[in-house]
């Protein structure tokens, strides 16, 4: 087995081999950050369990694997995405298809959706929306000590850019289907930027779905800016196979009066690590951070949440629930930071997990750092089994044990789903959760891609 130095050397080599190609297609601001990010990554190394933020999730073995390629989309991939587009049916949302996290259209690298929202490749956006990209790119990850974010900055070649101009309010959500597909084992990194300007209102669903059985590792970083009084809902639906590992890091910066929800719905996946950071930087900003994790076999799901109250009068609420079966494991780390001047802060956090077997394991850790004195803050964590009394109640009405278990698990999960602020999505999410609990989930029923 290679030593830690050999492991970082591997990425150092990868950097020198791939950087010329990446540089050529990427924009100046991005390129100018790469060298420094690589240095920082090499200094910190791949996180180990000694790292407090990765105490419950061992990502190192994922990076030791020799992936056949470091994904940079080429014309073949673009063609593939075009094919999927032809199969789009029942479109009740603005749909966009990505391949391995990349926006792969050849002709139309950035486009305006009905309603006025722009979506496209980040590299392309750096040309068309240069000021916007320069104002926001790299700003909301600054000061981060997670080496994987630096690795992303060093090596991500592109990603998705979404721009919601001031006052634009979409009544239909934007659905991004991210197809994870390759005939080789791939490690892919992409970098997204979402800018929702003042008074805008947009909901974005991002569905990750693996199409081929290869081993995948994704390390994706998303930065989002939400302007004054804007509303932004981000709903992630993660449905990947057991050989797929997904690391997402999302940084959401909020101005005054804005309302944000982040909803991480993890239905399936070998290893999932979602880092979600909310920065409440304008007064009266509100954020809701929701998560649902349903895991079985050897799956592992880690939600690492960090809510920072930087100014007075903001509200935050974290609700993460999960059901673990077989020998699956999960972790939740919920940080609430309240800055010295952030008076009249309300911050709540709750994490509940049901363990269906004795071989499952949950680690739940609240982390409160409160420097202001006028603060309402509560947190709670529970780990338990299905309620015996409720089981008997259902059975006493003629419902079989298996069906009663399903109903109770569904009810438990629904507590998260019913809090999703986008009402029309709740029924779809409930259906997906039910299918998942029944073990019938292959592709998401509401998916516009009919990929069989």
């Amino acid at each position, binding site marked *: 087995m290679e030593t830690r130095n050999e492991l970082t050397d591997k990425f150092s080599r990868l950097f020198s081999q791939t950087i010329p190609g990446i540089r050529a297609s990427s924009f100046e601001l991005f390129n100018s950050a790469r060298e420094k990010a690589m240095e920082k990554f090499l200094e910190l190394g791949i996180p180990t369990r000694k790292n407090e933020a990765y105490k419950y999730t061992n990502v190192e073995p994922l990076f030791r694997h020799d992936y056949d390629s470091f994904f940079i989309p080429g014309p073949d991939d673009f063609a593939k995405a075009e094919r999927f587009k032809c199969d789009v049916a029942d479109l009740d949302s603005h749909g966009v298809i990505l391949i391995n996290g990349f926006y792969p259209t050849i002709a139309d690298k950035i486009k305006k959706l009905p309603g006025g929202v722009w979506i496209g490749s980040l590299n392309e956006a750096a040309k068309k929306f240069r000021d916007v990209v320069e104002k926001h790119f790299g700003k909301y990850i600054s000061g981060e000590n997670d080496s994987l974010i630096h690795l992303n900055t060093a090596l991500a070649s592109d990603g998705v850019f979404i721009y919601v101009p001031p006052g634009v309010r979409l009544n239909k959500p934007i659905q991004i289907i991210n197809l994870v597909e390759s005939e080789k084992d791939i490690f892919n990194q992409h970098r997204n930027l979402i800018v929702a300007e003042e008074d805008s209102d947009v909901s974005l669903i991002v569905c990750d779905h693996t199409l081929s059985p290869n081993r995948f590792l994704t390390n994706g970083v998303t930065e989002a800016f939400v302007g004054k009084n804007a509303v932004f809902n981000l709903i992630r639906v993660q449905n990947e196979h057991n050989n797929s590992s997904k690391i997402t890091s999302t940084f959401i910066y909020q101005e005054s009066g804005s309302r944000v929800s982040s909803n991480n719905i993890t239905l399936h996946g070998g290893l999932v690590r979602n880092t979600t950071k909310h920065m409440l930087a304008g007064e009266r900003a509100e954020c809701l951070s929701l998560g649902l994790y349903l895991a079985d076999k050897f799956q592992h799901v880690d939600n690492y949440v960090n809510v920072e109250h930087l100014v007075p009068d903001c509200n935050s609420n974290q609700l993460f629930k999960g059901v673990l079966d077989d020998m699956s494991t999960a972790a939740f780390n919920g940080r609430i930071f309240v800055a010295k001047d952030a008076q009249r802060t309300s911050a709540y956090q709750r994490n509940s997990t049901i363990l269906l077997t004795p071989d499952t394991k949950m680690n739940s850790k609240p982390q409160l750092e409160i420097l202001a004195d006028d603060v309402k803050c509560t947190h709670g964590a529970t780990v338990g089994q299905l309620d015996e009394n409720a089981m008997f109640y259902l059975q006493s*009405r003629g419902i079989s*044990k298996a069906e009663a278990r399903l109903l109770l698990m569904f009810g438990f999960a629904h507590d998260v789903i019913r809090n999703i602020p986008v009402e029309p999505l709740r029924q779809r999410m409930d259906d997906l959760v039910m299918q998942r609990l029944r073990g019938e989930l292959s592709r998401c029923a509401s998916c516009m891609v009919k990929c069989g």
Partner: protein
Amino acid sequence: MLVIRNLRASIEGREILKGINLEVKEGEIHAIMGPNGSGKSTLASILAGRDFADVTEGTVKYYGKDLLSMAPEERSREGIFLGFQYPIEIPGVSMVNFLKTAVNEHRKHKGLEPLSASDFLKMMREKKELVEIDSKLANRSVNEGFSGGEKKKNEIFQMAMLEPKLAILDETDSGLDIDALKIVANGVNRLRKPDNATIVITHYQRLLDYIIPDHVHVLYDGRIVRSAGKELALELEKKGYEWIKTGEENSVQTWKPGMS
């Protein structure tokens, strides 16, 4: 339909039921009365299949079948219904989803096709009217945030939906104001048919002003110490349970081992 013979049961080694004998026939309403701790709820739970008490002796036959060997869901599908003293709140599970699952499991057991969504909703509407249940209750999660009275009414609504052969109502009247009590009692009366039966377990006589029992039994210290017609309830109301306790030794109807 139900024959209980010398039923003895213990919880954690302490004997709660000390030889119960009871026979219920189609069309009958039985009231089981008794002071707190006499074993009323334990008896109800055992009949419904809750396994917290160990049956140490005796038999329970339901239409000739050994009831005690049946799983709780089988008992329900065979027509036994327990109205809970403390109905359980199940957040996130809608009444519609819950009852549709239950009704369709019952139908499957009878070899019937599942109800279509519209037929099911129609059935719910009809039953709601029958038992005078506020229509909004049916749109909420099972018992979640229901008041005490709403929970009890909801039990009667479920009973109406499942149309049991034998309903066992465990302290359904406790915590009810007089209006809720009437609704519950009316529900029970309207669901009464010549081929079904009800066991009303209660601490107080007042429910029996509205549900007229054919037989009244007094359960005391794990035994049925007195059985008679509906007049027994009135006598109990007048004299209190002390009368039963002190009169126990003299009563000719006191059950003794080996009797019945």
